[in-house]
């Protein structure tokens, strides 16, 4: 079973997205801008949508040590502070959401195999609902998903650190898509994509 740490700033509904199940046990680590946590017991660190990016920024060295140990970090949030090695999210509202379309650019792990990209683009016929802004990716990172204008929306970076970074341009993902959308197709696609990330990107620590 994977052991996942989830940073929590105690926003409403957060724990509904990450309910432990036979595949993964979730452990919520409360962030408050001061407290540090021992990340060594975990295979995966999740920075969910709506996280306290001030607190996470102050935990930068601990996160880098986690990555240096070959572990995996998922960030499904708009990280305006500078804690992600090599990659930076930037907010932007210069493009109209009605024109947003996503396409898969580089998917060496088959993360989107059998998953509808349309469900990331549209909700109830409205486009641009899922992510905001874009990512300036590290030079060696894979841009998995790009938008209409070729800007990075999902980035997989297996080169900048010894670990693995999976980043979305603030697009929310969770073990259950509870609360993200009431559209059944979108619900299924987002949850399937998240589980694909768990299956193909996270290496469980061997139990001795």
């Amino acid at each position: 079973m994977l052991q996942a740490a989830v940073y929590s700033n105690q926003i409403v509904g957060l724990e509904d997205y990450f309910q432990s199940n036979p595949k993964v046990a979730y452990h919520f680590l409360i962030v408050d801008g001061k407290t540090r946590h021992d990340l060594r017991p975990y295979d995966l660190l999740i920075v969910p949508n709506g996280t306290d990016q001030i607190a996470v920024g102050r935990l930068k060295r601990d996160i880098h040590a986690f990555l240096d140990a070959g572990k995996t970090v998922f960030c499904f949030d708009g990280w305006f502070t500078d804690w992600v090695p090599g990659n930076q999210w930037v907010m932007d509202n210069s493009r109209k959401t009605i024109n947003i379309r996503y396409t898969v650019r580089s998917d060496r792990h088959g993360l989107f195999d059998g998953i509808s990209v349309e469900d990331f683009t549209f909700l109830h016929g409205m486009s641009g609902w899922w992510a905001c802004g874009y990512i300036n990716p590290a030079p060696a990172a894979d841009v998995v998903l790009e938008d209409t204008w070729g800007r990075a929306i999902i980035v997989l970076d297996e080169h900048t650190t010894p670990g693995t970074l999976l980043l979305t341009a603030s697009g929310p993902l969770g073990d259950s898509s509870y609360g993200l959308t009431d559209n059944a197709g979108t619900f299924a696609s987002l949850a399937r994509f998240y589980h694909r990330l768990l299956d193909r990107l996270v290496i469980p620590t061997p139990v001795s």
Partner: protein
Amino acid sequence: MIGLIFNGVWSQYTFARAAKYRALYRLIYVHDLDATQLEGLEALVIPFQSNQVALSARKELIYDFLAAGKKVFVEGDSSASWLDARWEDRPVNNYWWVTDPDNPPVSATDYTHPVYQGLKPRHACWHTHGAYTRIPEGAEIVQTNAAGEVISWQTGTYGGTLFATTLDPVVEHGIQQITHLDNYVDRMTAWLCGKTPAGEFTFAAADFGVTPERALA
């Protein structure tokens, strides 16, 4: 100047850093909230996705601020541990204007309230995050949904004016996916501090990729 209680959430940050609003709102990191941080402020906004546990631990500061005759504007969810009201979650409908445009999530609004004066119905409600099933005795109801549940209310019981709504104007405006929110947020801002925001909702690249200390400066 309005204090914006900040839980480190990106949409709270982008709102406060937007060119249109940055001179009128000051981010106050919720874990740093103390009496000194509130000095000189005319109003406080507690946005959606706030840390209710941290707020509860500092609730005396909020009520001291109200007792000084100031305004406090609470958005989205809240907790009965610091607010004398009961908030309950409800499914969010943010596509009603596509599927059922004649049936918005708010069915009745008091358009005589200064925040709502001159607003069209679609500007007065985009979507709601839950509802209030109990509000303080004597509070005025400003908005309700079709089920008669309270969406927005206010009270002068604590000295100043406490306004609460399950709308999420700051967070949603920071997200920038709804283009008409200037109407609501500009009226809200003018009511809170007496100044009407001007200019465009634009971002500066220099506000991204910064240290936490720079983000709070």
